[in-house]
C-alpha cells in the first residue's frame, strides 16, 4: 500500500517536470530557430517479489515502483521558414550550426538573424566565427551572405561562415540565449555549406501537439493523484477499521 502511494507520487513528480518542459516549449513558440525539448521517462528497475509461506519462498513476479526521468531530448528538426528578404537573414540545413564566440568559449547556434554589432558580424549578441576567426565588418559597405555561406562586402568575398556538423560521441547541451554547448565529439566545418538567404527559421514548436501534450500531462497527473488518494483511503480503512467490531 505504501509502495502504491510512492509509485503514484513518482508519477506526479514526473508530470510536473513534463509540464515545465512543455511550458518552456510554448514560451518559445516564436523564438528564432528554437528546437523543442521532449521529456523521456522510464520505469524504475523491476524488483522480483517473493511470497513467504511456511519457511519457503515463492516468486510472484517483477514489480516496478514508479516512473523516473530518463532524459530531456532536444528534437533536431527544422522549423518553418519565413521569407524576410533581408540579405543577412539565413537558414541552415538540418543538423548544421553556426559557430559563435562567447566569453565561455565557442558555442553553436541555429539562429540566422545576423547583425552588424560593434564592428563585427554577430548573431544574438555573439560574434560569429568565420573560417578565419571573427568577421570584422567595415563601415559604409553593403554586406550580404551568398548561398554557399560566403560573407560578401559590396560583392567581394570577405570570409566564409563557419557552418559545422558534429561527429563522434557528442552531446549538445542547451545553454539559453539559443546557444548550444558541445560535449565530446568534434565540430567539423563544412567546405561549402548550403545556406538559404533572406529566410529565417522559425521555432520547431507545434502549438497543437504541445497543447495535446499539456492536456495529457495534466490528466495523467490528475489520475496519479486519484490513485494516491484511493491508496490513502484504503490505508485509512486498514489503520482505523481493521480490528473494530
Amino acid at each position: 500500500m505504501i509502495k502504491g502511494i510512492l509509485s503514484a507520487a513518482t508519477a506526479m513528480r514526473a508530470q510536473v517536470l513534463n509540464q515545465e518542459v512543455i511550458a518552456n516549449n510554448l514560451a518559445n513558440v516564436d523564438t528564432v530557430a528554437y528546437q523543442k525539448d521532449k521529456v523521456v521517462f522510464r520505469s524504475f528497475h523491476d524488483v522480483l517479489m517473493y511470497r513467504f509461506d511456511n519457511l519457503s519462498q515463492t516468486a510472484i513476479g517483477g514489480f516496478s515502483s514508479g516512473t523516473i526521468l530518463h532524459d530531456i531530448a532536444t528534437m533536431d528538426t527544422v522549423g518553418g521558414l519565413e521569407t524576410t528578404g533581408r540579405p543577412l537573414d539565413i537558414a541552415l540545413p538540418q543538423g548544421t550550426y553556426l559557430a559563435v564566440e562567447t566569453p565561455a568559449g565557442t558555442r553553436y547556434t541555429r539562429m540566422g538573424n545576423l547583425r552588424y554589432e560593434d564592428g563585427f558580424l554577430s548573431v544574438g549578441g555573439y560574434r560569429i566565427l568565420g573560417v578565419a576567426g571573427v568577421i570584422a565588418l567595415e563601415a559604409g559597405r553593403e554586406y550580404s551572405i551568398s548561398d554557399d555561406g560566403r560573407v560578401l562586402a559590396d560583392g567581394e568575398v570577405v570570409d566564409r561562415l563557419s557552418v559545422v556538423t558534429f561527429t563522434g560521441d557528442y552531446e549538445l547541451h542547451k545553454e539559453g540565449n539559443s546557444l548550444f554547448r558541445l560535449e565530446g565529439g568534434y565540430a567539423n566545418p563544412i567546405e561549402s555549406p548550403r545556406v538559404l538567404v533572406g529566410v529565417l527559421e522559425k521555432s520547431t514548436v507545434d502549438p497543437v501537439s504541445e497543447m495535446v501534450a499539456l492536456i495529457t500531462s495534466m490528466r495523467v497527473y490528475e489520475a496519479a493523484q486519484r490513485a494516491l488518494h484511493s491508496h490513502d483511503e484504503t490505508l485509512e480503512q486498514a489503520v482505523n477499521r481493521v480490528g473494530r467490531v
Partner: protein
Amino acid sequence: MIRALWSGATGMTAQQFNIDNIANNLANVNTTGFKRQRVDFQDLYYQNILVGRNTTASVGSGVRAAGTYRDFQQGALEKADDPLFMAIQGKGFFTIIGPDGNDYYTRDGSFRLDGQGRLVTATGHFVRLRNARPVPRDAQEISVDENGVIWAKVDGEFQAIGQIVLTVFPNPQGLHAIGSNLYMETPQSGEGDEVLPGQDGAGTVLSGYIEKSNVEIVTEMVNLIVAQRAFELNSKSVETADQMWAIANNIRR
C-alpha cells in the same frame, strides 16, 4: 509547477511586448519615412537536473524579448506636388539641427520654408544644408535636383540656395529613435559620415516625392494574430500549472 507557471508568464510578457511593437508599427502605417520594427526572442537559461549518476538533463525557464530590430528597407515613394518634399533613394539620412543645437537624422523629407526663407522640417527644425542662404522673397520658382541642390528662380535666373547634406551610418540599426521621425546617433550606430547626395552610396534626392512608411499591413496583421495566439497559448500553460497545483493541494481532502 512553479517553474511552469513562470515559464508561461515569461511567454506572456514577451508576447505582450511583441504586440506593443506591432501596434506601434500599425499606428505608423501612414507616417512619412517610418521604418518598422521587429522583436527577436531568445530562450532563457536552462537548469540542470541529475539523471542517473553522471548524466544531466536540462529544463528551460522560458523566453525573453532579446531586442528589437529596425528594418530600414526603402519605403514606397509617393508623388507630392511640392518641390521641397524630398525622398532619399539609398541609405542616407537627412541631417536636422534640433532645438538643442545637436544633429538629428530623419528619412522624412516633407520640408517647407519658414518666414525667413530657410528650409525647415514639418515640426520647424532647420535642415542642414551646405552653403546655405535664405530663399529670396521674390523667388518665382524653386526646384531641387537629384544631387540635393536647391535652386531658386529670381528674375528669370536660377540661383543655388544650398545643398542637402546626407549622413550615412555604419550600422543604422543602432540609431536611437526619439520620436517626431527623428533618430539620434549612438555608440552602436557608429559615427555618421556627412556625404553629399549621389556620393558613396548615400543615395540620391528625389524632389516632389515623399517616402511612405515601410509597414505592410498584411504582414503586421498576420504577426498580430500569431502574437495574440502565442499569448493565449502561454496563458494555457499558466492555467494548467495552476490546475495541477490545485490537484496537488487536494491529495488530502
